[in-house]
């Protein structure tokens, strides 16, 4: 994949994260939602996990945060590792860990 595609995804996801985080915080606080105390109770959480809207919201948030974070880690590592072969190995390692964490994060939603 071209470097510019990766960076473009990084920029778009950065903007998406801001919107998703604001939505997430609004739904938990008294601004829209019930407030932190009630929002974190077992009943509310289990109720939300059963809703397709919340499933979609948190899947999107998980995907956006993980992708943005892992692209960022890749960029930082590439600053210090200049050997092309090592970069390819690091890149593959990062994407494998990324997929494992993405699946792990989606387990509550899948189950």
């Amino acid at each position, binding site marked *: 994949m071209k*470097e510019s*595609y990766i*960076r473009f995804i990084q920029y778009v996801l950065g903007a998406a994260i801001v919107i998703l985080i604001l939505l997430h915080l609004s739904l938990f606080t008294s601004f829209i939602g019930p407030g932190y105390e009630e929002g974190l109770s077992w009943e509310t959480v289990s109720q939300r996990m059963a809703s397709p809207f919340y499933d979609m919201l948190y899947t999107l948030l998980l995907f956006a945060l993980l992708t943005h974070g892992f692209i960022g880690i890749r960029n930082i590592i*590439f600053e210090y590792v200049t050997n092309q072969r090592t970069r390819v190995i690091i890149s593959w390692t990062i994407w494998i860990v990324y997929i494992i964490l993405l699946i792990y994060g989606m387990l509550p939603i899948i189950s």
Partner: protein
Amino acid sequence: METVKKVTFRIKRWIPEEGKFRIDAFEIPVFRGMTVLEGLIYIKENLDSSLAFRRSCRMATCGICGIIINGKPMLACATQILHLNSDTITLEPLKNLPLVKDLVVDHTPFFEKQRLIKPYIIRQDEGEEYWNPTREYKQTPEEVEEYLQFSYCLTCALCYAACPTSGTNKNYLGPQALMNAYRFIADSRDEGVFIRLDIVDSPDGCWGCHLAGSCSDACPKGVDPALAIQLLRKKVIERDLGYLKTVKGTSLVSPLPHIEGAKRVEPPKFTIRGAKKKAQEILEKYFK
């Protein structure tokens, strides 16, 4: 010249035989308008003839006398000692480049990176006209404005020495090469935009920049390489989104048709034997 005061030059000299730096201090008389380069010449002529430094034009045009003065990359010929407002001036060789001796550094990596981005006009319709030009490229003043600022570069390597990314990543193209890539992309006569965008689109190209801006701060000609790198990123994204489809350079016109009796200026002759043939071979191979 009347001596205004005495100033101490603390010079961080690279000693290649020992493989380490040594700091020598020299006290020199300063007159009004005296530059750091004149101070170095004074030391070489009167105090220590073994001191090595580079200089040529003495008028901020050749860009070879770049050194670190009081921690900042500057041209020694364009920096007046009295303007530094200090009785002790520290001089060091440029950073991020291999050291040769004392204040002399090897510019080879810097110029190799500049060569990578193909710093010349690329045309698809080049043929006999390229080697034996009879006409000029049409270009409006507005089209010249697009790249004029970036064409003032001296290739002094001050931006390269100031860049923190060039210091940590040896493969990073550096501010000068990236700025030069944009300079030719913005040139309306050029048709090599996709070739150059492919070269700079990498973690070691325009995406390696950390937006520190020290390159623009160090530039003695106000070229602003940091701006050029951002414009280069914009071009790369435009290409990906399909805004840059075909790039057609400006057409050729007869030279100065409005001036009667205007004569074409002959291009300089090749000074190295066989250079023209070699250049033609490279060009033919490249466009095939």
